[in-house]
């Protein structure tokens, strides 16, 4: 289990600063709107018989996605150390779940490759409910450091979360970069 040493504390402090920038820079309403209505419907209503159908229909507005992607890339680089950014989003059609809307690097606290949604609970729910930056307990066995930044729409409602995750500096092994 990795301990929260001085280096890790410093990294977390930096990530909290990046999280504040993320909250300011990412437009949650624009992100929600970039997913087509049909894609959102299939994300929310996966067909148990045709499991790939939700993925087949997934589509986004190119320009909006690219803008968000580039913003997340820049956020990663602000940290000054390898740190991956991913935008989790609520959708009107989703109940108690969030979907990944855009991501850059491969490392995540909730690596659900191939799954369209994950339950909205724990720290993700806390971040959305409070509208505040949330720092995840780094002393678990994931060897990951994570900070969550709320993302708001034009009404001031928290509708998404930017996840910033990096490896603990004392991690013994490099997480697979090829997810």
């Amino acid at each position, binding site marked *: 289990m990795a301990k929260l040493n001085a280096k890790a504390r410093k990294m977390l402090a930096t990530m909290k600063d990046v999280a504040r920038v993320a909250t300011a820079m990412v437009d949650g309403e624009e992100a929600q709107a970039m997913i087509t209505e049909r894609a959102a419907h299939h994300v929310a209503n996966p067909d148990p018989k045709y499991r790939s159908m939700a993925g087949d229909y997934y589509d986004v*507005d190119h320009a909006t996605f690219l803008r968000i992607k580039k913003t997340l890339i820049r956020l990663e680089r602000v940290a000054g150390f390898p740190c991956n950014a991913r935008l989790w989003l609520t959708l009107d059609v989703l109940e108690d779940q969030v979907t990944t809307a855009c991501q850059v690097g491969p490392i995540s606290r909730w690596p659900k490759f191939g799954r369209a949604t994950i339950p909205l609970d724990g720290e993700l729910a806390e971040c959305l409910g409070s509208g505040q930056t949330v720092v995840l307990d780094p002393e678990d066995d994931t060897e990951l450091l994570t900070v969550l930044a709320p993302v708001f729409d034009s009404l001031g409602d928290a509708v998404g979360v930017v996840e910033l995750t990096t490896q603990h500096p004392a991690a013994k092994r490099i997480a697979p970069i*090829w997810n």
Partner: protein
Amino acid sequence: MTVAIRGTLWYHFATGHGLRGQMTSEFTLTAAHEWIAHDPFGRPKPTDVSANAHSITNDQGAATLCAARNGYVSFRVLVQGAGEYRLSASMRGGLEVDLSRAWYHRMAADEGEPPQWWPDALVPVRGRKTYQLPDPDNAIDGQTTQEFWVDVFVPKDAKPGVVSGRVRLSTGGETVSLPVKVRVLETALPDEPCVTVDHNSYSAGMDAVPRGQLTSPRVWRRPIADLHNRHRLFHEHRGVFHNLGYKQSGAVEPIYGPRVEGRGRDLRLVDWELFDQYHGPLLDGSAFATAAPGAPAPRRAAAPIWGAYTPINPIWPADYLWWGEKGYEVEFTRGVRQFDAHLREKGWTHSRMQFFFNHKKRHRWFEWDGDEPKFLKDMGYHKEMIRMWESVTADSPVPWVYRMDASWQMKNQFAVLAGHRNMWVCGGFITWYPDEVRQVMARGEIVWWYGGTPPIHTASSGILSAIYRTWARGVQGFCAWSTVNPGKDPWFDCNGCATGLLYPGDRFGIPGPIPSIRLKIERNGIQDIDLLDRVTKEAGNADALREDWRRSIPIPVWEKPSPSAYSLPPEDWDSPTLAAEHEPVYQADETLDPSWWQHIRGRALA
């Protein structure tokens, strides 16, 4: 019904199969057709039971086979009995024999259901190894039968005629023999198959790397050796192997691409050591001069691989931050030009280097589909990538191709991407587009199609249908999309291994992959198609003969599109509206007799 007559064991299934073996008081040796698997109790796999008898033994109890030179002929040997024994095999006339013990995979079963065990992984028999029945390692209660696989290789210079040999079982001072007779034909297989049967895979399979050692040659030694050995096994089985080195995020493992240093006009590709260690022996062919661990010495000539994926993707070598801006093109063209220059400098100019996008937008890393685009609007990205790539590789001696794995938009893509050095790998919808495929091939482009691999419990001859479809369509290749991942526990909780034709050999003390029965049957099928192809070409009317075959083999080669495919754009297609499955999952044709390939083999060896 089983009847023992004068020391010879006869099997008669209700279907009319005949098997004959030699018996002592304790052990029996029986020859069985390569397409009929038996469980550890001597019962044939139900999906292999044919309405047509295909015994391979003659009246004297000898296994009788026929083979072209420069190729293999195979059969199974069932050892039945109890106790310790040794097995060996030999042939006269310079023919070479490879003997392998089959592993019985315990198939996953619902709770309360009795498990089924079917053979597939093949463990080479080395030296004078003593076996036991029941086999303690395979751990099957009441096991009475052990299947072995026999490959007989007929060298190119073997003398035509009947050659004798023997499979021998020795136990407690007694010997049981199974005579083998191989009729060697005058004809010889071509060195290169007429169709390319590809086996696809993803990454080197490293779960994690010790911190600070991401680029350490020591860390990558075993993964590189494993990849080379997979190449060797598939090559020896008349196939090819592809291994993609980046995944959906675009991150590249260090053995697949050099490090990118600097940005913009200063971008450089550096540290080629790991890339060269992995790719060098494949691109110059030297990897094939030696065999995979446990495998016999190479019988096919060493040659550069057919082709390879490159690491080029939306974030390599260029930074996606600059996509749509001039900096992206500067970085992309600098990186690809340096990559091409490295290949030329090394003399690696024989293998088709594939510029290919594997990402799908459903995974949320990119806004467009690189692989199997569903939305025509995404083609703008492909066209822009091709424009930049061609600007720096057009005059290269490296045989670059733009590989497009196409499904939904296949027909539109054929038109939109016309005029480039395309390599198409088409999904199941290819069956709707015979005319379009012919036109694309007439433009000089490469056409493959892709699909799945039959799981172990389906008909043993099922793996041959993809080879037949490839040849009957007149396209150049078939890609089985995932072939080196047999699952978490292929030995005792087997999911059918539809994504694995090779198995890890470590369990048996072999530091590398081992082949499967399905791979052997596939190889033998490729051989048959090579002979059939020659026959049709020599007849001078190949297209007409191919059409005759399409009529006589009950496998649909071309089909009419689903009505919805006419009325809806591909963006609105899905499996329910099309009433067609588009995923590359093997679907057994239960109307097909398990011995259907005999029609082809009979003609090939006539």
